[in-house]
Each structure stands twice: as C-alpha cells, then as structure tokens.
C-alpha cells in the first residue's frame, strides 16, 4: 500500500501569540513550530498500516523552509521519503489553493491512500482534506477514528456528535481525514533519527505546481476576542441599591419585564 500523509507545520501550542502589524496573521518571529496535532495521528496511522500491509509512506508538506523540520520528524518516525512544496508565503493560501498545490504534487504518486488531519490547529478550516479528495478524484471520509483494510476496501469508524459513531465502507484508493486520538503516537527513536538523515526530501517550489496565487478567500482581520464582560458595583443604602438593581435588570440586562 502506498500511503501519502499531509503534514502541516503550525505554531507550537505553547506559543504566546502576537498579531502581526498588518492584522491578518500572527507574528512568526517569537514562536516555534511543530507538527499539526491531528497530522501526527494521521502519520502514526499510516506507519501502522504500512507495518501491517507493507508498502511505502510518503510525507508531504506545503510551507516555508522551516517546514522541512516537520518532514524530518516524519522521516525519523518512519516515513520513507518526503516532499516539500516550498512556499515562503504559504499562509496567504486559502484551503483551495493549498489543496491544488498538494494535488498536483500527489497526482504522479498514484497513492492507494491519502491521509490528512481533520483540521489544522492554526487556521482550522477543516477543508483541505476534502478539497484534495475532490481534486484527486478520490472518495473521502472525515473524522476517522479507526481504519481496517479488507481486500481492497476500507472499513472505517467516524466520530459523530455526542458520543455517536458511524461505521462505513469505502473502496480504495481513498482519502481520509483523521481525528486526534485515533491511536497512541509513537516516539521518534535514536535509530530513526539517524536513519532520517539518509532519506530523501524532494523540494518542489509551489510556483512550479501552482504559478499564480489567486485566492478565492482572504483573511480580513484576526484579533483577540474583545472583552465585553463588565462588573459594576452598586453603592448606597440597601433600599437605593435595590431600586437601582431593579432598574438595571429591567433596562440593561432585560431579564425582567419593564411594565
């Protein structure tokens, strides 16, 4: 089985974030980056499937130079090779453009299975995976919690709301978006880290795959939720305070009728 895993590099969860001066993205100078959490589960799932059914795991990431670090991590954990779609301005891409670039790089690979995370911890569109499936002409299923491969087809468990699950079947080849917690992610081993140095990371400039950048959507502004909570102390003799309180409950909080 040839499996591709899309891994995105996102700001580390511990990073105190600051908004960049242009107001449409965060400032990247003071933070470190790590593999998007659902993607690390997708990678683990790919490695387990390979261990069970044989084949190859290809990790692919679209991002700036630093994204290579995430690919190295994937290689250290056991991916066989990696593709880096290099784009210093990748944060300006919308999910459709990202999916287009990924699709063009993956088309010639003719994978049996493509895994992505459910959504990314930074933008959280949750769309790249399903768009990619469409572009590659593959059937897809989302929010996957378990994968079984049975003679050329997949038996899958999807997570629904409120503790409900759904079992479905899908033919191969297919694309799945993986939910965090599907497995227990392994640690990189010393031997794995050493072996990763000898594995291939092929770099393709994004402009080679997708020459023009014509996003179909654009981020207007990101901002810290504005606080609207307000605490007010009413002072004075109890009788006055009670009257003021009644006023406020009627006209400001509007929890009492004002008749």
């Amino acid at each position, binding site marked *: 089985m040839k499996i591709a895993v899309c891994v995105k590099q996102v700001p*580390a*969860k*511990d*990073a*105190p974030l*600051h908004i960049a001066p242009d107001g449409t993205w965060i400032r990247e*100078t*003071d*933070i*470190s980056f*790590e593999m998007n959490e659902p993607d690390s589960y997708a990678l683990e799932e790919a490695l387990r499937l390979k261990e069970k059914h044989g084949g190859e795991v290809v990790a692919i990431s679209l991002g700036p130079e630093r994204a290579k670090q995430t690919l190295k991590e994937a290689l250290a954990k056991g991916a066989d090779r990696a593709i880096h779609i290099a784009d210093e301005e990748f944060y300006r891409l919308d999910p459709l453009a990202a999916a287009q670039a990924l699709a063009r790089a993956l088309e010639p690979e003719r994978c049996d299975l493509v895994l992505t995370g459910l959504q990314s911890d930074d933008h959280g569109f949750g769309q790249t995976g399903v768009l990619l499936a469409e572009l590659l002409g593959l059937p897809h299923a989302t929010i996957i919690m378990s994968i079984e491969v049975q003679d050329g087809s997949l038996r899958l468990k999807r997570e629904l709301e409120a503790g409900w699950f759904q079992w479905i079947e899908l033919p191969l080849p297919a694309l799945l978006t993986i939910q965090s917690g599907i497995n*227990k*992610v*392994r*640690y*990189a*081993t*010393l*031997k794995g*880290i*050493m072996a990763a140095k000898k594995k291939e990371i092929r770099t393709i400039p994004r402009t080679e795959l997708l020459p023009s950048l014509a996003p179909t959507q654009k981020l207007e502004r990101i901002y810290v939720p504005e606080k609207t909570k307000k605490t007010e102390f009413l002072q004075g003799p109890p009788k006055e305070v009670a009257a003021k309180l009644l006023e406020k409950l009627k006209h400001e909080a509007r929890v009492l009728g004002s008749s």
Partner: protein
Amino acid sequence: MKPAERERLDADVLIVGAGPAGLACALRLAQLIHANREAAATAGLSAENIYVLEKAREIGAHQLSGAILDPRALRELLPEFERTAVAGVSDTPVREDAVYFLTEKRAWKFPITPPPLRNHGNYVVSLNRLAKWLAERVEQAGINLFTQFAGAELIWENEGIAGVITEDKGVDKNGRPKANYTPGYELRARVTVLAEGPRGSLTKTLVRRYGLDGLNPQVYGLGIKELWEVPAGRISPGFVAHTMGWPLGTRIYGGGWIYGLQQNRISLGLVVALEYPDPQFDPHEAFQKFKTHPLVRRLLEGGTLVRYGAKTLPYGGWYSMPRPYVDGGLIIGDSASLLNAQRLKGIHTGMKSGMLAAETIFEALCAGDTSAKALSAFQKKIEQSWIRQELWPVRNFHQAFHGGLWSGLLHSALQMLTGGRGLRDPWRTRPGHEAYQRLDGRGSPPPRFKGDGRLTFDRLTDVYHSGTRHEEDQPCHLIVADPNICVTRCTTEYGNPCEYFCPAAVYEMTEERGERRLKINASNCVHCKTCDIMDPYEIITWVPPEGGGGPNYEGM
C-alpha cells in the same frame, strides 16, 4: 526495567547537554577529526559517531541567559564569524554601559563603569538563538544531535562512567507503561562529557559518588528574566545597564540587568544569590518589584511581555570547581563551575572548556587511553588557558559579598589589588540553604504577590509566557524523599520555602479534609533547579522528565 530489554548504541563520544559548552565541544571535535583525517581514521573516529543529547523539545529551548557575549571563545572556534555570520550570533553590539545603585525611588549612576562590567567589544545575544546557530554547524559537520532525549542515569564503569541511560518514554503517572512505552537506550561511549549546565542531575550523582567536590561547595544564583517589546524610542539597541541595591537591599547578593535590543526589545532580569536568610523570600516577587522602579517602569510602560523564564547559575568559581575528569568522563561549562561571577559571564568560558575538552578527548582517543589519568590533561589545559587567567583573580569574589554589598565592594577592590588574594584566601563557603534562618513557627505566611497584569505579573501568568509544557501523564520528576517532613518540620521550622523560591509556582501546600499536603504542579516546572538547591532538608531531587518537556525559551 531490566537492562537486557534496553537497546544499546555505542558512540565514540557522548555529550550530554546542548548548551554553549556542549555544542562548542562537539564542533571542536568535528574540526579536529576533519583536520587530522588519518589519525582519526586510525583511531576509528568519525563525526557520525559523536552524539549530543538535549532534553529540550528543540535546540535552545532550555537556553536562557542575559546575555552579553564575550566573543573570545567563539572567535577561536569560528574565526570567521564576525565577518560572515555576525547577524546570526548577535542581536546588537554593546554600545553603552551604565551601572546604577537603586533605592526604592531613586537611581544613582556610577560615574564610571567598574572595569568588570565594561562591555565594549561584546555583543548582546539571545542564547537561544546562539545555540540554534551553533547547532546548525554541528549538524552540518555530521554529528548526531538528539533533542527530546535526556540522560537519566549514568552507566558506571571502573572509577568513572561509560555512558548514560536515556529516560524511559511513555510511562504513566503511576509508573506503568503506556501503549507507546519506549524504554530508554543504553548509550555507551568511549568518553562521556557532562555539559548539563548548573546543577546537572547526572553531574550531581557523579560528583557525589566519587567525591569530586572542589574546595568549596557550589553556590548558586537564580536569574529571572522577561523579554519585553516596548514603544519605539524607549531604549537604544546596545545600551546595557546593571543595577545594585533595591529591591534586594545590601544584604542579599544580586542585581538587575536591562539590555536594549533591536526592534524595541528589552531583555531585563534580576539575579539573586541562593543564600538568603529569609526562607519565605520570594525571588519572583523581588523581580516584579524591580520593574516598578521609576528607572525600569519608564522603559516598560505601555509595552508587552513577550517571554518569561528562570534559570540558575553557578557562582562558586574556581574554588567550587569539581575535579572535572574521571575514567571515561569529563565535566564542562557551568556544570564544572567555570562561570565568572564577577562579570556574570559563563558562555565564553563554557565554550572554551568545551573546546579544551574536545582537544583532550581527541588526543585520548588517538592514544587509545580514556582513563582518568589520560583525561586529567583537561584540567591542565584549563590551568594553562585564559580560563584560569580569568577565574583565578576572582576566586574569592563571590564569597566577599557574604557580609553584604558594601563590605563586598571593599573586599573585591582589595582582591583586585592583590591578584585575588584579598584578606582571606581561600575564602570558604557553605551550601546556600544553610543560610536560612529558622522561623520556628514565628509569623504568619506573607501575602502572595499578585501583580497588576500589565507591568507586573503573578507567577502563573509568567509561567504561561515561558511556553512550558510537559506530558501530563508521567511520573513526577520532582522527587521528594520524605513528604512527611514538608507538613511537619518544614512548616514550623522554615515555613515551606518551596512555596516561595520556585519561580514557576510548582510547589503548593494544600489542605484537603483538614489534612495538609504538598501538591506538586510538575507540569509548570521551568527546569531552573532551584528546589534541588534550596530546600532546607535536601530532600527534593530534580530528575529529567520525559524528553521534550520543559520551557520554550524562544528568543531568550
């Protein structure tokens, strides 16, 4: 865990800790192998067979320093750096020095900057960035750098060591293996170099086992730092100031720093000697107060906190230096007490010690003899190098301040005139926690500092800004030998100093159903090692948590 289940790897050289000392050692080794190919080949030495372990998530994540870099060692290691790569190393050259004596409301500027605090020709750096920059070069040279792996135990052999066992991964909080359990490796090496920084957990066991202590026990300072971004025009890049006095007064040794960085950044902090008498003294609170001094407030107001962190540094100097060699092992950098307390600088001496260790190791491996006798050449190299020239004249410096700031300044002036001898030589010290004065039930606990949320912060807000993260489901890495002492003797005798000295609010005395108990919020730990140093009964032992856990000192 039976050793038989562990995977074993054999290295030529194993370096524990990727700080400036460990990285300089690795790079110098690679240079020597490269320059002496035949000799290296005959000895079977290769860069691929040199391993560096670092417990942090990525290189530099546990590096916190002021920092002013004296470029002396880096110039010797990479003579080209100022011409080709100074931007990768330095934030800004030092442009202006100042020293202030502070009272609560006023600042007195010293008319001249005392020579040890003159920094012309030095660079203001982020040690986090410098470590990353060095690590890139180490990796390019073919050396294996392993982040997220800690040396958990030493492998004992002969009168020394033969490597380390790395920490077990995937163990739950009750010590049971989880689904992704991965036993630690048995990493053997012909020479193991301990470059763990101050109060190394392996170094501590090594020094104790073989009685390697120097003349004096090691004494420490705790440095608390914040990185700020402030409105333009508050401070010029390269302006560096050091302060004495308030809020520490003249009885507690220590002082503040304020360094102007590029892009309207300020590095500021307070170093406090961990040998103060009041067991309920709170260094974090002292630092917060420091920011409210008019001199500092003026710079910060309207700005934002970018990062927070805390780390110890060894003050003991030459007389606290442990014997730095055993069979198959060397100790370098802060772990070997090579910081110059008078100049508050240990990066350059640490790097130089790493380079000298590399030269010693290369010779030893070529000669096929890595015994303590062969490795003792390291100590001789230190003694013949500028490390001794720099540290010997200040061998009694820190001790001179035992009597307070004024007598300290007087003694150190005298020492300067007598080549370091002064009135007492060697001037003996005792471990810092022995300075505590017992409370014996006197007084109620002081109220905790809350901060205003803009200029000053409580410890939890600060910890959030340290980027600290640990796997939650793992055994506690702060081992309290007898928690009973905490709720009985310690409460009455010392009032639980752990609640005060820890800059990350890890220790908390709680009451549950009428019973007092010590609660340890281990996930907050920023790996400063203060608890290992300052608990009055020496019952707290810091051991490395699962690799990758700890702070993230990006840009610090």
